[in-house]
């Protein structure tokens, strides 16, 4: 099958295969991304992050259904952690989005972090680009919610939503510094639980203190995702943010930053991979490691010399 042609013509199978090719780094991955790239840049990418158990998947499911009611097509990437030991993963977010599976206007793909140090890999951004090229107008990226991924999400999303739940012990300790700075919208889910008022108040206080030069003051919304409560209002806020991004020029700025980050990230990854592969193939790696271990050389000089050799 000509994956690119069929994908652009609307085949879900081609879309699925394209994502696999990128994830598994097949030969054709490079050429697929090259050909699809001109077709990207149209979708609104919404990042959903927050601690495990906050209700991210349920919330995504409800938001997706609302967007569908409004006639939009939706792509969802659900990211779960890959075990650093076995390399395997349990990707269980789809359970909460079951009904959406049969909707031809929705495409859901589960991805493991696959060793990108708990953060969001470039492959997740690539998968979003593929869905964008395939015509999905709204793309949700739902992250793991631990480690680096919470902050990484801003690199991939236009609008970042942080989902919290009340009663997680000392609430303000649960709100780490990075989270407050990356959220465009905050959602207190499971808002029928004790502690909602306090969490809401503390969030608002922290957000007031956190005012930086951007003109968008993040809103705090309450939802009970499992019951569909607060979804309409949340969606209104998302759309408000989208309008703000376009009107203020912030969207263009973020996308430029994102493009730069992606380019540099890709470059870094590829350079490291090529140099490492050469070193392994020639046996140079083992030699250098032994030399450094025995203190005949130090790692800093070794790296400097390697860079001169390989990059000139």
């Amino acid at each position, binding site marked *: 099958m000509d994956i690119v042609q069929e994908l652009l013509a609307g085949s*879900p*199978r081609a879309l*699925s*295969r394209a*994502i*696999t090719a990128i*994830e*598994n*780094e097949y030969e054709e991955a490079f050429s697929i991304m090259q050909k699809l790239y001109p077709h990207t840049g149209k979708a609104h990418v919404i990042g959903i992050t927050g601690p495990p158990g906050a209700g991210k998947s349920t919330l995504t499911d409800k938001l997706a259904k609302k967007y569908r009611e409004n006639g939009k097509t939706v792509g969802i990437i659900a990211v779960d952690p*890959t*075990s650093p030991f*076995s*390399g*395997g*993963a*349990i*990707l*269980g977010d*789809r*359970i909460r989005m*079951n009904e959406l*599976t*049969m909707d031809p206007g929705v*495409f*859901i*793909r*589960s991805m*493991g972090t*696959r060793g990108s140090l708990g953060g969001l890999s470039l492959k997740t951004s690539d998968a979003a680009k593929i869905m964008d090229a395939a015509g999905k107008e709204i793309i949700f990226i739902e992250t793991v919610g631990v480690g680096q991924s919470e902050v990484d999400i801003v690199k991939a999303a236009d609008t970042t939503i942080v989902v919290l739940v009340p009663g997680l012990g000392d609430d303000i300790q649960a709100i780490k510094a990075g989270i407050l700075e990356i959220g465009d919208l905050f959602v207190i889910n499971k808002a029928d639980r004790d502690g909602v008022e306090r969490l809401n108040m503390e969030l608002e206080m922290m957000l007031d203190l956190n005012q930086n030069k951007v003109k968008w003051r993040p809103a705090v919304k309450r939802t009970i995702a499992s019951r569909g409560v607060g979804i309409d209002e949340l969606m209104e806020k998302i759309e408000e943010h989208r309008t703000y991004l376009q009107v203020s020029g912030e969207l263009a700025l973020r996308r430029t930053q994102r493009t730069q980050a992606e380019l540099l990230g890709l470059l870094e990854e590829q350079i490291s991979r090529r140099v490492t592969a050469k070193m392994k193939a020639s046996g140079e790696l083992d030699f250098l490691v032994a030399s450094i271990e025995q203190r005949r050389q130090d790692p800093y000089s070794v790296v400097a010399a390697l860079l001169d050799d390989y990059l000139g």
Partner: protein
Amino acid sequence: MEKRIRVLVAKPGLDGHDRGAKVVARALRDAGFEVIYTGLRQTPELITEAALQEDVNVIALSLLSGAHNTIFPKVLELMKAKKMDDVLLIGGGVIPDADIPGLKAAGVAEVFTPGTPTSDIIEFIKANVK
């Protein structure tokens, strides 16, 4: 090596006993596979559509309800319609030995009944994935 074997684990029909499926899911994860766990009350349509979107190598069904002679053929039919001929279909649960040859003749790659070590499932998948 970036390639991972992806397995969809699902329980079709109304059978609510998912401990076995969860045990298998964990074993597969520990073997380095990516397990898309879709849980209870799945229909053949939901299973095959999810399998297509997730581009899985294996569909693994857990059935304790006795409905295997209806469900498996239906799933195979949908897999064929969706041209998923490089996907393995395997099953486990309460499936009488007498029914297994019939299921295999219809296209089920293997059936793993209670007591089978999970390592057997893992080895089978590794040996047969296309």
